[in-house]
């Protein structure tokens, strides 16, 4: 029979809706309202995972976001999600889940040998052992990660959609426990715009399932009434299953809402998760507190659980984590389990309370129901069998709490409910910039000074008394409202029973049984960090908690140390003889709980929505004609146009030869185009470019190079003077936006006196470029009103007229070294013109060429591509372009060319390379050396920036940056390749073809 550990009555579950699910291949049942964790407990499954390092059997410890052990792979195939906490996974029909750690199974794990040799695996073991020899880490790492078992990514793309939404509010209330609900009601009644977000499926937080009376009614009723009241306000938005995962600058918070993960048959097209991006005027944090484990020997055995979790399982989920319990505590709150367990029909064998003295209201109440209370005692050993805890030893604690003075005996039990006090959930406060402060009396970190518009209230502010929480929540909300200029209305707080709690006693590490000295005391369950590891780190000289964290992996798991961190900090403090306040906390970073990549990406996935795609007006033609495309920035550019049976190499060679011998056609529409107008346009160009511009006459074009203020080449292009005060600048395809911003910035911030306007016209013009000895003849056959003769339209000039009947601006500029024309027409006419040119070019065998051929043609001419032959560390002098650097005027970056480092003579300089074997094409990026060298590392003298096979020259050619390269022309360098070859090449001038520019000027 299934669900043997389910209670017959009670709980917030629906017994009329049984749900089947599969855990590690076993078919089990639970009920609607269960989490995966409660359903596993209902079925008596105690060992649910193996630990990270020692592969010890582990059971469920907690009941919420803090769970460190029950972390599973949930769902199948494309929808599977790794690393989910079973305590936060709602059960649905057909759910499947797997433990990720443990091979071949969690019951029998072969790597449990690590536990027996644990003494050989101290903190820093992996760093100390596997970093030598260093290059081997790559091999070890894979194996170590496999052993550790971190879950796996889906094997195919996610079929679901994810949303993002932006929203504003007056008050964001985080957490819908008693404090959150009370704060929200105060804000709602006062007329504020309110968002309430809670990570659980139901509102109520810590009240859920409890028998507490509040406002004269049972807690569940009160919660229901509160939620109904809140939902009536149109300006209130209530979000359940919604974790506030990040608190960022300027009160920007991110809420991760899980919309369909609890459904077996989600509504089609409904997004699976939603990211709310909230800008809140005020934030009220009511995130509660998480119970703290006690650190004692073998405190990780299945059946050792947080006391509060034991209560919640029994009350809210009506399941019994065990039938005979012992409670181990240092405070009064855990005594609640005594009564909850007895009500649920379990036997409470005793309360082991490490505090001295008999006077305690809670202890008296326990004794009254016949439960023995062992004051001044501790659990010294945990005995476990196949299913987890079966017996514990207790002993009398010495007065200083450092040792056990007498053995008291042992108690049989199957659950040990522990409580080491409470840690307020200060994560969001800390993320907002606050620094939690250690409170000695409460022995926990409390929210510190508020840096942003936020305040904490309730348990997360260290207030553990329910009635005071309710009063505090109203006050917190009222103050938040006043800050945004809303008058808070008076809200009465409901009455609750008051308890007097005796103070807790902080004892961060429990001394063990001398008979069993080897029992490990776990601080961080998820990463198997023990108390001994932290003490070892302290002995080895670690002082900062941030360093100890990295050395011992404390708090490094996906739970981010929600259970273990504060214990670890306090143990370090003890080891160093300091107080926890001197140690402080590690940095709390977003996200509070892990967030899926899907939720982060939202709709911005796939070809279409990840990044905009830009296509030229001629794109359709390129597709029709079988072009292979290349991404250049956001643009799709034709790369080459393979004919049937051609590979890339053949196609590119054919395109190059056709251009050199007749005429080629290139879509150059993507080049950046900026129109520069105004009285001071020439002055601006003079300051931006390295060469002089005022002498350029209307109708002429000039090549320009722009530098950063550091003297390094930033962009280049041809600028033409359209009229007296009007210029058209072209930029590289990828640099267009950057250059526009660059010019704009200088104009606005430094030179506001210049009368210049900049307009981006990149998309306004479609550019068909024709190049080759037949290009003039072709242009003549198409144009009206344009004199194409070399005299009327010399190299670097332009004219306006009609081409194929379309109004056009024709620029005679060349990136190929041939006579070439860039025909600019209005973008909407681009395709029409292109088709007309193709038609008219037929007699010449016109050949479309792509970026690949364009690169080969320009490299043959030694024309650099900024960003390929330069990398932000190259000056014009390094490129051998001294001729374009004005000696007379100042320009951006000029002074930097004379700094000691930019002026030294062994800088990397641009040269050409010709391989000894003409057929060998060097890989781009290949490092260059001077030859064989016995010293290591081999001195690098440079690298290859561009490399192609030139069909025209029937020889491979390359451009390279080589230290002092200009002085080495005619000498040799070697390129050692990954396959072991050492390729010899001769250093040449970077111009391989028509170095006198006869062809392009013709």
């Amino acid at each position, binding site marked *: 029979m299934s669900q043997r550990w389910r209670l017959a009555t009670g709980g917030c579950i629906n017994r009329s809706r049984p749900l089947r699910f599969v855990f590690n291949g076993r078919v089990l049942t639970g009920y609607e309202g269960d989490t995966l964790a409660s359903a596993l407990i209902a079925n008596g499954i105690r060992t649910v995972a193996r630990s990270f390092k020692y592969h010890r059997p582990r059971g469920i410890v907690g009941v919420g976001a803090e769970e460190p052990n029950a972390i599973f792979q949930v769902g199948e195939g494309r929808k599977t999600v790794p690393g989910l906490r079973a305590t936060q996974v709602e059960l649905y029909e057909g759910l499947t889940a797997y433990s990720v750690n443990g091979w071949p199974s969690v019951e029998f794990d072969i790597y449990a040998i690590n536990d027996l040799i644990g003494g050989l695996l101290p903190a820093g073991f992996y760093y100390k052992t596997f970093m030598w020899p260093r290059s081997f880490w790559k091999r070890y790492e894979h194996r170590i990660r496999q052993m550790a078992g971190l879950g796996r990514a889906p094997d195919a793309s996610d079929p679901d959609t994810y949303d993002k939404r932006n929203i504003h509010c007056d008050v964001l209330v985080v957490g819908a426990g008693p404090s959150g609900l009370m704060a929200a009601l105060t804000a709602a009644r006062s007329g504020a715009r309110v968002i309430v977000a809670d990570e659980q499926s139901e509102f109520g937080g810590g009240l859920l399932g409890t028998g507490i009376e509040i406002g004269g009614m049972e807690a569940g009723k009160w919660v229901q009434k509160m939620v109904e009241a809140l939902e009536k306000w149109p300006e209130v938005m209530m979000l359940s299953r919604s974790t506030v995962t990040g608190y*960022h600058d*300027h009160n920007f918070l991110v809420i991760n809402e899980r919309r369909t993960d609890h459904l077996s048959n989600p509504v089609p097209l409904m997004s699976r998760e939603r990211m709310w991006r909230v*800008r809140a005027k005020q934030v009220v944090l009511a995130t509660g507190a998480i119970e703290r484990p006690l650190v004692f020997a073998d405190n990780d055995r299945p059946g050792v659980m947080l006391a509060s979790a034991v209560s919640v399982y029994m009350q809210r989920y009506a399941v019994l984590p065990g039938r005979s319990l012992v409670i181990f505590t240092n405070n009064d709150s855990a005594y609640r389990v005594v009564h909850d367990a007895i009500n649920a029909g379990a036997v409470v064998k005793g309360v082991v309370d490490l505090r001295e003295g008999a006077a305690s209201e809670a202890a008296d109440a326990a004794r009254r129901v016949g439960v023995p209370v062992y004051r001044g005692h501790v659990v010294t050993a945990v005995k476990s069998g196949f299913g987890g805890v079966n017996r514990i030893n207790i002993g009398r604690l010495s007065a200083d709490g450092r040792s056990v003075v007498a053995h008291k005996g042992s108690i049989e039990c199957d659950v040990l409910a522990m409580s080491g006090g409470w840690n307020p959930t200060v994560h969001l406060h800390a993320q907002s910039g606050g620094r939690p402060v250690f409170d000695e009396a409460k022995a926990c970190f409390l929210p510190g000074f508020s840096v942003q518009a936020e305040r904490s209230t309730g348990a997360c502010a260290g207030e553990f008394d329910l009635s005071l929480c309710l009063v505090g929540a109203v006050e917190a909300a009222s103050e938040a409202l006043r800050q945004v200029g809303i008058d808070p209305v008076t809200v009465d707080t409901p009455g609750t029973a008051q308890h007097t709690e005796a103070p807790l006693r902080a004892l961060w590490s429990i001394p063990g049984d001398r008979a069993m000295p080897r029992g490990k005391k776990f601080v961080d369950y998820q990463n198997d960090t023990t108390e001994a590891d932290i003490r070892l780190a302290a002995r080895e000289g670690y002082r900062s908690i941030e360093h100890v964290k990295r050395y011992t992996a404390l708090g490094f798991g996906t739970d981010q140390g929600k259970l273990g961190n504060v214990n670890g900090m306090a143990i370090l403090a003890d080891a160093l003889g300091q107080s926890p306040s001197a140690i402080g906390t590690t940095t709390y970073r977003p996200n509070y709980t892990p967030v899926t990549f899907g939720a982060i990406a939202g709709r911005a996935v796939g070809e279409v929505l990840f990044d905009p795609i830009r296509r030229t007006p001629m794109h359709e033609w390129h597709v029709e004609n079988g072009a292979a495309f290349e991404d250049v920035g956001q643009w799709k550019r034709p790369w080459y146009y393979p004919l049937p049976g051609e590979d890339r190499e053949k196609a590119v060679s054919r395109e190059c030869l056709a251009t050199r011998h007749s005429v080629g056609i290139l879509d150059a529409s993507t080049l950046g185009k900026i129109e520069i107008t105004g009285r001071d346009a020439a002055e601006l160009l003079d300051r931006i470019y390295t060469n002089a511009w005022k002498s350029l006459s209307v109708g002429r074009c000039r090549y320009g190079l722009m530098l950063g203020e550091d003297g390094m080449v930033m962009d280049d292009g041809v600028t033409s003077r359209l009229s007296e005060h009007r210029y058209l600048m072209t930029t590289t395809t990828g640099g267009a936006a950057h250059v526009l911003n660059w010019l704009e910035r200088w104009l606005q911030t430094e030179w506001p006196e210049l009368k210049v306007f900049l307009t981006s016209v990149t998309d306004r013009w479609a550019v068909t470029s024709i190049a080759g000895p037949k290009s003039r003849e072709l242009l003549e056959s198409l144009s009206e009103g344009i004199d194409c003769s070399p005299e009327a339209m010399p190299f670097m000039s332009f004219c306006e007229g009609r081409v194929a009947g379309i109004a056009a601006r024709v620029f005679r500029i060349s990136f190929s070294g041939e006579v070439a024309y860039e025909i600019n027409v209005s973008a909407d006419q681009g395709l029409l013109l292109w088709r007309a040119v193709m038609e008219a070019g037929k007699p010449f065998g016109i050949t479309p060429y792509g970026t690949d051929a364009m690169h080969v043609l320009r490299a043959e001419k030694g024309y650099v591509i900024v960003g390929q032959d330069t990398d932000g560390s190259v000056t014009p002098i390094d490129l051998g372009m001294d001729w374009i650097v004005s000696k007379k005027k100042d320009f951006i970056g000029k002074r930097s060319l004379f700094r000691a480092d930019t002026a030294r003579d062994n800088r990397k300089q641009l040269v050409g390379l010709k391989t000894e074997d003409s057929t060998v094409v060097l890989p781009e990026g290949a490092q260059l050396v001077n030859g064989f060298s016995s010293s290591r590392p081999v001195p690098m003298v440079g690298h290859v920036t561009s490399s192609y096979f030139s069909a025209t020259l029937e020889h491979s050619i390359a451009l390279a940056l080589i230290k002092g390269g200009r002085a080495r022309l005619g000498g040799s360098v070697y390129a050692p390749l990954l396959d072991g070859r050492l390729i010899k090449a001769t250093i040449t001038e970077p111009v391989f073809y028509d170095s006198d520019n006869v062809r392009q000027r013709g």
Partner: protein
Amino acid sequence: MLQIECPWCGACDQSEFSYGGEAHIARPKTPADLSDQEWGDYLFNRENPKGWHREQWCHTAGCRRWFNAVRDTVTSRIKAYYQMGAVPPEEDGR
């Protein structure tokens, strides 16, 4: 994500803006007269204060205007905005 008040467009998310670093770094009038040290100082050295910082922002995805802001580098609180060329507001020493 910061919320920045563009003097022309009002409050917008930081993702619409680009950062320009420390404000009031005037480009030297005659760079050629500067020593390497002085030029390097203009080029590379910045205040990097802990506290109030006068800095440039541009509403890149909006009106594309540059302006100045005074921001606390610890809390990222912005206490003032002023236009290019304007005199910066008095510092109150936080």
